[in-house]
């Protein structure tokens, strides 16, 4: 990006619940991108990608939401969000009757933070320090939707973009899990509509991390982490959740 002297401008998309509950992850995303020399703008009028409605069967109600998204983000070089799930939704489902060209443009230039760092900025080192044992929770939308890592279901060469980034963080020790890419059970409205199954799935994920010695569970999806954190807090566990942006932006 510096070769031509042109500094790209990134539109920062902060999903609704991240804005409300996890502003620190949003700040870390912003600061990290700025540190890496990217111009970042946060359009103030943004709301949501519409995924909660679409995944519940109400995709036909998301057109206003889509129009607003296009209005907010069409002009940027890239759009980056610290949420694999929302990015996947936009990539797969953002459309517009009036502005399909712009919708298509957005679908092609929206990135989840991790893949933006590994695939667009192609960073090879980071000044980050996080002296803790960390377990990675692969969100399903990040894993099987955006291919941030290789899924265990396939007979294909392994790779992992979040792992690649965490390897650049000094002091950080990654723990290995019994089931490295099992779903946590959040699933949008599933988390309340199928409360019993959702919680059982979450409890089992948490146990896998804690029994393998993780102090922190990290992910590129805060929706998963919010669900896991709710279970950890209820059970007074010492294990904490942290968005991957906060680790990559951590200096002490």
């Amino acid at each position: 990006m510096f070769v031509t002297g042109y500094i790209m401008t990134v539109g920062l998309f902060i999903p609704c619940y991240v804005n409300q509950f996890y502003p620190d992850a949003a700040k870390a995303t912003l600061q990290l991108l700025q540190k890496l020399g990217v111009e970042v703008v946060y359009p103030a009028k943004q709301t949501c990608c519409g995924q909660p409605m679409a995944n519940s069967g109400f995709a036909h109600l998301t057109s206003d939401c889509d129009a607003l998204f296009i209005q907010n983000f069409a002009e940027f070089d890239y759009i980056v969000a610290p949420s694999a799930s929302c990015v996947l939704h936009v990539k797969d489902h953002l459309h517009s009757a009036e502005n399909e060209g712009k919708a298509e443009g957005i679908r092609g230039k929206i990135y989840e933070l991790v893949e933006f760092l590994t695939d667009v900025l192609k960073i090879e080192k980071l000044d980050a320090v996080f002296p803790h044992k960390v377990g990675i929770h692969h969100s399903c939308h990040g894993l099987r939707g955006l291919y941030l890592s290789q899924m265990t279901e396939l007979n294909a060469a392994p790779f992992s973009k979040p792992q690649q980034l965490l390897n650049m963080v000094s002091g950080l020790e990654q723990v290995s899990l019994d089931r490295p890419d099992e779903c946590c059970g959040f699933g949008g409205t599933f988390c309340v509509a199928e409360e019993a199954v959702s919680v059982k799935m979450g409890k089992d994920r948490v146990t896998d991390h804690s029994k393998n010695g993780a102090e922190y569970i990290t992910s590129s999806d805060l929706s998963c982490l919010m669900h896991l954190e709710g279970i950890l807090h209820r059970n007074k566990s010492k294990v904490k959740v942290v968005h991957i942006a906060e680790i990559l932006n951590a200096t002490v």
Partner: protein
Amino acid sequence: MKQTETKDHAGLAEDFIKDEERVNWHDGALWYIREKRDIASKQIPEWEALREAASQIKNNVISNLHDYLLQFEANLTKNGVKVHWANNADEHNAIVYSILKAKGITEMVKSKSMLTEECHLNEYLEERGIGVINSDLGEYIQQLDNEPPSHIVLPCIHKRKEEIGELFHEHLGTEKGLSDPTLLTRVARKHLRNVFLTRRGALTGVNFAVAETGEYVVCTNEGNADMGAHLSEVQIASMGLEKIIPQKKHLSVFLRLLARSATGQPITIYSSHYKKPREGQEMHLILVDAGRTRQLGRTDFRNSLKCIKCGGCMNTCPVYRKSGGLSYHNTISGPIGAILAPNLDMKKHADLPYASTLCGSCSNVCPVKINIHEQLYKWRQVIVKEGYAANTKALGMKAMAWTLASPEKFSTAGKAGRWFLHNIPFVVNNKFNPWYKQREMPEGPKESFAEWYAKNEK
């Protein structure tokens, strides 16, 4: 049948989960099979190419079903097999009954066939004075307990060995407290041997039907299909229209995929080919539609008909593993059941496409590459449009769409506090906030990111 129809998947799953120890071993047993599948599939370098080949062959089949079926019928007839066509479950059952009645047969042995479960054949025949014994061990156990199978490959995977021992004690007179699987299997085998020797009629399912030759293949691990068929005077095979494959050589693709995907075995112990009747034997084959052509007409869902019933999607599905097959209240449970069932009765099965987190693991283990999780998403859209989502839920979603479409309203809602968690439970119309039952709410920060940004970055 045990009555499980009144609650939806969420309610039935909640009941299943109350016994956490059971859930843990149910989950563990199925995960173990998923791991065996992983090992088996990774021993074959061309695994993904095989899946692709199988998928393409099945795409070809469902696009040319009419021609292949006629070719198959012609070859069956040439081989001396009598062919019947059934539009629905009732027609199928009536055909089976008339075949048995013509021969004066009052007892029949049946090897595993999910189709006849779907048609409720056993009940139909029993009402007409014909006894049916399921000869697959797992199905035999389920039949003793008067319960449908909970898994298409492992029908009684949800039962503890002690529970099976108790059933055997009650029905087969074994010693109380006997729960050793080997000993119980021996007892079942003794009973079933007698059944095989005395039944004049045998019915099997069909795994693959070869259009080119008119033969069909039945895959089992117990050899029970063969025992029944070889000793019978009348052999009946029931198959769904979609079980066709064009040529015999295609079996080399499917047989390699089926058992590896199902249990991690390289191949089922028995892959039996049936082609023509023995001297003095009658062979019948019933081709059953029962909703399949309707599904074929649904562009978004037609490729669900590629399914070879390996059960892989169930073993990998975390929702299935935690909730048990019976919570799907449909003959075929799990992810594939959830995309097949709404075609049969959309109102009754409107809950099933929602019994998923859309994690996508199923689509990636599926040996014929059915895009299961995408179809779950698409079924949700259809169910809402057809009006089968609860009205309150629909209203909640409209309110949500309205809020999200306007930045002004959104920020007011945001300031009002925990917008997200306050709204989602409302959407699903629960009296109490189900999030909070077993989870804490996130701690609300002093200011949102938007507020912080407005102050600090502009």
